């Protein structure tokens, strides 16, 4: 209230100053942002301290497994073992905590016969350390138990849902707690293929929406059947990758430029990703068409507390969002220095570390948190757990390190709101541009102020009414006098 009064006063007194205030014109902004950046509420890129730093480079040589050739996928287990799918060498390699190779598997016994992979593209390791490999070249999925024995295989399914000429080319695979297997198959537009624990094909799920260009639609609607067959078909975009969180929800990325490139699918295939942030989670929001256009998300990795990271192959950047869809930090880039990639293919988290796999260079870059990144991660975790007091402290620390982190102000505001400090809450919500919570806090704050100053306000109102009445009586009397005089 006081602030707005001040504002009002200033506004009325210094009109000229105000009017000239706006004459500044636009600020000049550089095309490329600071080395580490984030997006503000207004969609501008603003400088941010780096949340992660590249510390280690894992190559085939350094791990002791021999050169990696065109590796496509990695998977990290909860005990920090890294499973790397070395596609070009048709094998997978298991690395321990020190990034040393402990096991390499390139041939296995299947139904009594020695067998090999052929251009495998995807690997998934369950909590029980059972391994599923999408053996793309052999059109099958091979299932290993925790001792690396091949125990099952899923081959091209037969079903009336599938067309006669259906080609089964599994490229990525994920398995939930009930051992249902979700397969991303190349050339399939109907979504993910879901298999039961026994390997029987069940159905498709989570197909992307079709985007129809109105102009194309018009031409198609007035053309003949023969012409129509010549035209491009409207097909939904394919998924580009998938991951499974510990609650069994699928997180998926797709190449959809118009819709939502990131999705969280429930068991029915409905998209339930929260998009409460300043803008939809979709990687970079400011880009020029000259530098390649929209981001191409190729992998997604879900961490704890619903945080997830996506990998943009076009610019080699990793974007990490929290469960509500607020952008937390951005790291990586294309280049030749440590912490930059050539052709990033996969991303995984290992505890708090982030691993990015580069397929051409055949190496994994390990990113570790900086003080800022650690604080931000912990703040988001505390808030997710509902520990508002700790979240408040951590978010305060975050804004001390990065005043541009608008999202953190909302965290502080919520703590103030919970404590009944409405005035502070209002201020912090305003800084975080959180209109919904601002309104809630403001309502309470206004009530508080009105209650506090109720007597003053009522006195003033009553006094005004009385003065007005007296003035009216005075005018009437004068008018009467005039009449009398005349």
């Amino acid at each position, binding site marked *: *209230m006081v602030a*707005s009064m001040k*504002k*009002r006063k200033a*506004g009325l007194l210094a*009109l000229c100053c*105000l*009017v*000239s*205030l*706006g*004459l*500044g*014109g*636009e*600020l000049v902004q550089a095309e490329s942002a600071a080395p580490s950046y984030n997006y503000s509420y*207004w969609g501008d890129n603003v400088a941010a301290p780096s949340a992660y730093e590249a510390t280690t480079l894992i190559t085939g040589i350094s791990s002791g497994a021999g050169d990696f050739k065109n590796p496509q996928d990695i998977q990290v287990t909860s005990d920090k073992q890294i499973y790397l799918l070395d596609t070009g060498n048709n094998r997978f390699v298991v690395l321990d905590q020190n990034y040393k190779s402990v096991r390499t598997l390139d041939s296995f016994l299947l139904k009594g016969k020695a067998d090999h992979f052929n251009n495998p593209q995807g690997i998934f390791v369950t909590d029980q350390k059972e391994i599923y490999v999408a053996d793309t070249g052999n059109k099958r999925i091979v299932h290993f138990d925790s001792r690396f024995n091949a125990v099952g295989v899923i081959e091209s399914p037969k079903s009336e849902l599938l067309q006669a000429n259906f080609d089964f080319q599994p490229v990525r695979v994920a398995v939930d707690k009930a051992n249902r297997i979700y397969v991303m198959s190349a050339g399939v537009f109907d979504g993910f293929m879901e298999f039961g624990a026994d390997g029987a094909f069940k159905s498709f799920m989570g197909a992307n929406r079709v985007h129809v260009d109105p102009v194309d639609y018009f031409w198609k609607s007035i053309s003949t059947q023969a012409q129509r067959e010549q035209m491009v078909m409207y097909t939904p975009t394919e998924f580009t990758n998938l991951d499974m969180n510990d609650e069994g929800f699928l997180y998926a990325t797709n190449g959809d430029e118009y819709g939502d490139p990131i999705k969280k699918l429930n068991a029915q295939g409905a998209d339930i990703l929260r998009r409460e942030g300043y803008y939809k989670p979709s990687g970079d929001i400011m880009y020029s068409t000259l530098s390649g256009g929209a981001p191409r998300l190729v992998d997604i990795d879900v961490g704890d507390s619903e945080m997830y990271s996506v990998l943009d192959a076009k610019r080699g950047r990793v974007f990490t969002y929290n469960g509500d869809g607020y952008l937390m930090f951005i790291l990586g880039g294309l280049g030749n220095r440590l912490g930059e990639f050539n052709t990033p293919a996969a991303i995984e988290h290992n505890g708090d570390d982030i691993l990015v796999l580069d397929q051409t260079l055949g190496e994994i870059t390990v990113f570790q948190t900086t003080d800022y990144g650690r604080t931000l991660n912990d703040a988001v975790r505390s808030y997710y757990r509902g520990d508002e007091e700790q979240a408040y402290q951590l978010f305060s620390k975050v804004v001390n390190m990065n005043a541009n982190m608008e999202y953190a102000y909302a965290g502080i505001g919520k703590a103030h709101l919970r404590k009944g400090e409405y005035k502070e809450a209002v201020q912090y919500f*305003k800084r975080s541009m959180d*209109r*919904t919570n*601002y*309104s*809630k806090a*403001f*309502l309470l704050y*206004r009530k508080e102020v009105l209650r506090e100053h109720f007597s003053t306000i009522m006195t003033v109102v009553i006094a005004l009414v009385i003065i007005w009445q007296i003035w009216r009586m005075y005018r009437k009397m004068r008018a009467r006098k005039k009449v009398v005089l005349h």
Partner: protein
Amino acid sequence: MNREALHTPLYVIVHPFNGYWDLKYECSQKKSLILSFGILFMLILTNILGSQYSGFLVNLNNPKDLNSLLETAYVLVPVLFWCVANWSLTTLMDGEGKFVEIFITTCFALIPIVLINFPWIWVSNIITAQESSFYYFFKNFAVIWSGLLLFVGIMTVHQFSPSKTIGTILLTVVAMAFMAFLALLFFSLIQQIVEFISTITQEIVLRG
């Protein structure tokens, strides 16, 4: 004089038929013209203050993009376009209004927008999200009121029938679009000429 002068605009907005008649035939044109400029100035001021000081909940402008000169242009250009287009058309359509009269009519029709929006700049600072529907209601109400005033004003100033007024207003909007198109064309051509000359100069300077 002051009291009288302020009385007219307030009379016009609540009694548009009589008010506009008086404005055309009774009032001094010089006084009305001064008032019109005053109204335009107030409108510009309201818009500038509104985009800077409206309450957080209803102010969706990026404070970095606030430009008072542009805000001024957003008021002046449409008003001028409207007056020019309307005058050009009604001259051909047997309208009785002179350009000055059209301008005065248009400016007087904008009074409700100033009167309603100005207090709401400050009131919007003490409302919550639920109450913001009142804010938007009053904003729309002001626009509708102004629209009606403009309609009556144009009808009176040209001595048109209602149906002819509607037709004229629609045609005026089309004419405004034409003018905007021509202005854009003109500016882009000028820009290209300037660019051409500057390129040639540069070339000559660099070669010589």
